[in-house]
């Protein structure tokens, strides 16, 4: 990919619209050294994690409820279909208008975009819960909390993991839009500034730096967690 980039940059031969990897790397070094990178990437990461946590909690709860109760599914499904089809931009604009240009509106807007997707994925999982284990939990009079922890959530774990994986990447993209439109810090805000001055090297430097952060999260957090959660699937060794 790096070679392709080099070739394209060399062919276009216009550092303004298509800077080479060298220029972008230099820019990255510059913003890292000035400390700007850590502050803005930190703000973006905070928004990503906050809206991710909110979206996963609400989405899992709603999905579980809709998958287990026919009545809930019947009444909430039209709302879910509508929510799935509202463009992210509309939700963001409305959240800023109704809640105000603040952090709560930003995080709520991102979470609202993600919740329906998590709900749909978890509803499928909740529909496929094993009835025999339900019977076992009832027969042994397990408490509601124990049931959730030991019987229900482990069965939903693959669905939660899939939703988390798909979710974190979608969320950071939406966070950038939210920052672009109405925040005064974060990677999206920086890209907004650089966009006004057509500074492509800057845009790429910021974008790449955050892609690296997201890759690190996937490798250091999501994958090990998935591997741990799947230990029991191994056969006798």
């Amino acid at each position: 990919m790096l070679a392709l980039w080099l070739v394209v940059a060399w062919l276009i031969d216009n550092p303004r619209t298509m800077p080479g990897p060298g220029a972008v790397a230099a820019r990255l070094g510059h913003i890292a050294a000035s400390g700007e990178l850590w502050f803005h990437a930190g703000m973006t990461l905070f928004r990503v994690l906050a809206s991710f946590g909110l979206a996963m909690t609400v989405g899992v709860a709603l999905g579980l409820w809709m998958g287990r109760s026919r009545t809930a599914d019947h009444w909430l499904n039209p709302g879910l279909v509508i929510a799935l089809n509202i463009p992210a931009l509309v939700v963001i604009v409305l959240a800023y208008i109704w809640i105000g240009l603040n952090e709560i509106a930003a995080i709520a807007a991102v979470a609202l975009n993600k919740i329906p997707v998590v709900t749909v994925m978890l509803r499928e999982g909740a529909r496929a819960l094993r009835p025999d284990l339900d019977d076992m939990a009832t027969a042994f009079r397990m408490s509601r909390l124990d049931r959730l922890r030991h019987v229900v959530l482990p069965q939903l774990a693959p669905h939660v993991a899939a939703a988390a994986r798909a979710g974190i990447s979608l969320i950071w993209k939406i966070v950038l839009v939210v920052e672009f439109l109405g925040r005064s810090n974060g990677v999206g805000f920086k890209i907004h500034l650089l966009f006004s001055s057509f500074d492509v090297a800057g845009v790429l430097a910021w974008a790449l730096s955050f892609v690296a952060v997201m890759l690190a999260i996937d490798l250091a957090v999501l994958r090990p967690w998935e591997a741990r959660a799947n230990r029991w699937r191994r056969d006798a060794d």
Partner: protein
Amino acid sequence: MRIDLRGKSLGGRAVLGTVALQVGRGQRVAVLGPSGIGKSTLLRIVAGLDPDFEGCLSGDDRLAVVFQEPTLLPWRTALENITIPTGCDVQTGRDLMARLGLDGQETRFPRQMSLGQQRRLALARAFAARPDILLMDEPFASLDPETATRMIGLTAELLDRSGAGLILVTHDEAEPDRLGARPLRLTGSPATLRAD
């Protein structure tokens, strides 16, 4: 434990008719009958897993169920499969596992155990709940004769030690005798219970 069943239908078809059964601590009863007659349905009602029936279920005895399949939590270790559902302490769980020949298997996951071991684990779990009455649904089916004989021996031994009662559902005519259980037969349509 006492059940006075007036009737039970599944999908519009009357499966069970009048069934009256009373079992206390130390009493052992076996319900015999061909498959599909409604034995498991009766056991599910007694276990409180199916509240949709006509009649009345009474008594405050502690019940524990050994299902047809081991029905273990695959994502929890063998020992946790005993302690989590029953709430018993770790030492009780270990002792029961040892008595059923499962010592050294505590940290294994169910998938890493043989079917015979999984069934013994399910039996250990049931006894860990300190039941007054043990409910068993074809627990020895699909085991090879040798393993089945061993399981029956272990069940009888644990029943003797704990003094628990037993309701065993089976299609195997020899099992009631081997467990010292009074045989009852489920016959007819809708099925009713009569002494053998």
